[in-house]
């Protein structure tokens, strides 16, 4: 006897892509395709990811080149105009997608791993471990993520790496809380008792038997968090607390052009459009995933 076939046990929101027979995963895809908002989100996000990856080959001009007239309006040559130093805005914004997506995905990956470990440990071991971890999580929970990121940047300083660290740490509590809550209920399931009586190690039970059943809420939380991480980076960079001034960041591009917005509106409008459309696509996807996976643990408010 090897593994307990716990796949069939239905815990609320239990879902694993590879658990699904082919027709169910096709059904899931069909479900997503019916949701117009989700399709919009998926298409826009794919375009953004591809253009961020291929930025050096697809940008119309060198984003640093100050070759053009200053603050030229929209034209065929410069679809989004040029900035106060005569640089092509579209090219700069395409490069900006790299930073936004990099920060969005990397921070969520980091906070997901740390948060899940803390959440599983707290829920599974209970007692003093739970108390220590939850005291910290509760403390962090009392503050909005963005404010925590600002506090952390105040201490560790600015720059791309520090921004990633600050936002990652700020998001840990969201994951830890959800995972802990789920683990507390799953811990009571019979297959966990069975695994224990077979003498499996704690680590094996936690990561092979319990964790897979918490995947659905984690997926949804991760999606929501990516959009808030992108907003967070843009906000920090806009305030001058984010990436260095020579990095392409939508928030920074917007901040740089603030003094010129009354004479060159496109400098104020387009960088924000890029941020909004990116975040909107991810939110649409997240909402569709929440419905599809029937997740209630994650609020649509990822403050």
């Amino acid at each position, binding site marked *: 006897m090897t593994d307990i076939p716990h796949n069939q046990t239905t815990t609320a929101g239990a879902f694993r892509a590879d658990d699904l027979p082919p027709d169910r995963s096709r059904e899931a895809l069909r479900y997503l395709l019916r949701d117009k908002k989700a399709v919009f989100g998926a298409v826009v996000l794919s375009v953004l990811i591809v253009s961020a990856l291929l930025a050096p080959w697809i940008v119309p001009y060198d984003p640093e080149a100050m070759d053009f007239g200053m603050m030229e309006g929209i034209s065929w040559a410069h679809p989004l105009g040029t900035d106060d130093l005569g640089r092509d805005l579209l090219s700069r914004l395409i490069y900006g997608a790299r930073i936004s997506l990099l920060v969005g995905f990397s921070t969520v990956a980091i906070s997901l791993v740390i948060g899940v470990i803390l959440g599983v440990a707290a829920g599974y071991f209970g007692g003093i471990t739970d108390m220590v971890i939850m005291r910290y999580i509760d403390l962090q929970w*009392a503050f909005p993520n963005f404010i925590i990121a600002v506090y952390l940047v*105040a201490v560790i300083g600015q720059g791309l790496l520090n921004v990633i660290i600050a936002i990652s740490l700020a998001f840990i509590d969201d994951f830890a809380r959800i995972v802990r809550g789920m683990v507390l209920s799953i811990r009571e399931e019979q297959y966990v008792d069975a695994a224990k009586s077979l003498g499996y190690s704690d680590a094996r039970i936690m990561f092979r038997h319990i964790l897979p059943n918490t995947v659905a809420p984690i997926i949804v939380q991760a999606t929501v968090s990516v959009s808030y991480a992108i907003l967070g980076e843009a906000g920090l960079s806009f305030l001058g607390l984010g990436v260095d001034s020579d990095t392409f960041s939508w*928030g920074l591009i917007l901040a740089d052009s603030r003094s010129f917005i*009354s004479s060159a509106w496109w400098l*104020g409008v387009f960088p924000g459009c890029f941020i*909004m459309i990116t975040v909107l696509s991810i939110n649409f996807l997240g909402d569709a995933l929440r419905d599809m996976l029937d997740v209630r643990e994650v609020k649509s408010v990822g*403050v």
Partner: protein
Amino acid sequence: MKQYIIRRLIGAFIVMWAVATLVFVMMRLVPGDPLAAMLFDAADPDMVEELRRQYGLDQPIYVQYFKWFWQVLQGNLGSSIYGSRTPVTTIIAEAFPRTMSLATLGFFFALIIAVPAGLISAIRKHSAMDHTVTVFAFIGLSMPDFWLAILLIIVFAAKLQVLPAIGYVPLSQGFWPWLSHIILPAFAIGVGFAAIITRMIRSSMLEILKTDYMRVAQAKGLREFVILTRHGFPNALIPVLTVMGIALALLLAGAVVVENVFAIKGLGRVLIEGILNRDYPVVQGAIIAVSAIFVFANLIVDLLYGVVDPRIRFE
């Protein structure tokens, strides 16, 4: 109830103590001398020594901590290292009403938008109206508040020139001058919050519409308007109240950013300027002040549940 309040108050103070301590420790753990900025104009090593002694930096860290904490307890947060060396408490006392003005008006805007939008959306579920509201709510959630602030400045200050673009005027100098300066920033802060509340009201109203007491009200032949306003809406507000703490946090976080766009020296601007200038006493003070608002606002919201919903009992 009384016990509950006392326990929560103690809890709130413990959180504040933890925040203050974390801030103190982190500011001193960072690589390099965190107070070096303070000494930047003192090139003479003797003078540096003198200043170190003066600020007590030559003492062990736990002595510094207790001294600092004792001062904080007495309401002394030190003074800015720049210019006229204004006491941090004075700076915060000036900034506080600005941030609260913004948050309050933002909250008001949000309710004006969200309550009707959420109700219509729930009552006419899956109508074109509902879909429109939903899409707008998503846009509101996804729009960076600082960008909305810039758009508002472009339209109302630069193009139409009907509202001032930056600055703040205290209420004591007249109602309209005060209001005109905070309309745009408050709106920028309120929109994201409005989006959240709209979604909340919609979903909680949908639940309410399915309840037995609503069916009873219908069976009694009450007019739809009465059913919705007397029986439906008040109950739909309860789940909304449970996110109020989060929402308030969101408003204040929004204020931190938006104040910087409108050059309003509220707590957010003080905090960010402090960070950019490496004015550590100010940063510490601002973090403690902002944190205190979150902690006590959450406490008040929790206590309000009982007032709004008598079914909730405090243990």
